[in-house]
């Protein structure tokens, strides 16, 4: 096995490797985030945390299709107070955790930050893009002015880096990204799931209890690549790529499109081993192509 450092620096975050556990995947507890990190992820993004506990939608909340997973879990989370206690319990362990947060507006985002900020974690990822929860998703993330006010509210309450997670469900994504960057976001995460639905033919019912959900998995990766490519052209801030990465080729493709690090979510379907598998593949590729640092690959797809 050839050794290569996979270390990356993303808006001040120092990560052992460019892979992060994506928000919404297993990371509702600090135990699960820790397991992802110990399994080889350079960092782990928590499930989105809001002000109050939320149980999410009634099941079915997820349906597996031949085109990927469609989910409407409904932002279930234990609430900022309880999650803050869980983070406090691992103080001193310097775990590379990014906390995803959501809210119904700038004031609510601000209060969540106030409750969490004293804890030891790397950064915030603002969920401006949930495609299936009314009042906290598209209403926030498809409107540049609202997004700007949310980012300002968070920015004024923390010194930690702030990433805005964007939705590709709107033609205004680049406008929202500009609003976020102009309001002080240190980086952008793209993309979230794509709004989707399935209908079960025997019963003729929409399968998910919430009817609408978000599509994830390999089928959304080409959409993510296009969006990351556009963002890289438009902005200087680092981009965290997200959407359908399950192999090292996918991860490298995302780096070439302009992502500085890459989130892995739905691929956890095959177990926590996915992080070390992808890292090994990236290492082999770097040796073969004579790259010394991951950063050297970022955005190379733009040279042509």
């Amino acid at each position: 096995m050839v050794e290569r450092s996979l270390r990356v620096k993303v808006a001040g975050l120092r990560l052992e490797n460019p892979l992060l556990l994506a928000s919404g995947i297993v990371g509702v507890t600090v135990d699960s985030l820790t397991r992802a990190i110990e399994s080889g992820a350079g960092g782990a993004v928590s499930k989105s945390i809001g002000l109050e506990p939320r149980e999410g939608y009634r099941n079915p909340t997820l349906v597996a299709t031949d085109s990927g997973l469609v989910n409407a879990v409904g932002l279930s989370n234990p609430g900022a107070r309880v999650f803050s206690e869980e983070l406090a319990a691992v103080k001193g362990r310097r775990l590379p955790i990014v906390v995803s947060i959501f809210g119904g507006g700038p004031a609510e985002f601000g209060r969540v930050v106030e409750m969490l900020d004293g804890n030891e974690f790397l950064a915030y990822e603002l969920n401006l893009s949930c495609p299936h929860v009314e009042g906290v998703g598209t209403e926030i993330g498809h409107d540049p002015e609202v997004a700007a006010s949310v980012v300002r509210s968070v920015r004024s309450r923390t010194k930690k880096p702030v990433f805005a997670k964007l939705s590709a469900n709107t033609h205004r994504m680049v406008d929202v990204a500009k609003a976020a960057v102009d309001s002080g976001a240190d980086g952008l995460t793209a993309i979230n799931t794509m709004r989707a639905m399935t209908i079960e033919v025997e019963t003729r019912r929409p399968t998910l209890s919430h009817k609408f959900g978000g599509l994830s998995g390999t089928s959304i990766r080409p959409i993510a690549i296009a969006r990351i490519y556009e963002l890289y052209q438009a902005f200087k801030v680092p981009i965290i790529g997200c959407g359908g990465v399950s192999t090292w080729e996918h991860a490298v493709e995302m780096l070439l499109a302009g992502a500085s690090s890459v989130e892995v979510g739905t691929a956890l379907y095959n177990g926590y081993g996915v992080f070390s598998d992808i890292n090994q593949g990236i290492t082999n590729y770097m040796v073969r192509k004579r790259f010394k640092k991951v950063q050297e690959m970022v955005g190379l797809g733009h040279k042509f």
Partner: protein
Amino acid sequence: MVKNVRETRDISTVFFVDPECSTARPGQFVMVWEPGFDEFPMSLSNYDAKGVSSVTVKPWGPGSGALVGARRGEVIGIRGPYGRPFTVEKCGALLVGGGTGLAPLLPLAKALVKAGAHVTVVLGGRSKSDILFEKQFRRVVKRKNLFITTDDGSHGRPGYPTDLAEELVRERNVTRVYTCGPEVMMRKAYDISDRAGIEYEASLERSMKCGIGICGSCTVGRNLLCRDGAVLDAKALKASLEEFGLLQRDASGRYIKV
């Protein structure tokens, strides 16, 4: 859905046909979708080579309530079978179950007998009318290896199944305890096995959403119950003793009592 068999005053076994379940192993579960109500995890209580399978259900919510009353010909959704099964091998097996927890122990008993294991079973319930699958277990294990306990003493030995299990572990050549039922009972069985230095496997239950290792709802410590369980062994549980038998996370991820 092909048949609904009333087992006790509130427990029913619902038979359905699902070809994928023909490959199931003891302790595996399916996600049962009762359209319009809910989707929830249930251990398989029967399965055969043709895919005729069953779950054994007690009404506790809207979905299971609807399932208990389901009729022949009704369409229900089945995903699975999922999860890590019980270990089936030649051993000195003691099966300890209470209530609907006996459901996954029935196919386990059949498979263990087939594998040449020495199988002893303790069936527990509140009272005589709550004892599940007595007839079915009698067909699988010898009379001298089948024990019954009831909380009120109306059938078999009065007391909890774990009281009897403790004696059996002492008196018989038991090398592994298998258990499913109320978590407090399973924790007691764990402590008994731990003291005796024998192997242990339990099928647990948690608030489950996706069933396939994605949503993170069903954690027991670092274990995702849907992928690492629903059968967990002593090693997995030893690392989760602050939770096992005491605490579980609700659908929001907050701790509540089991």
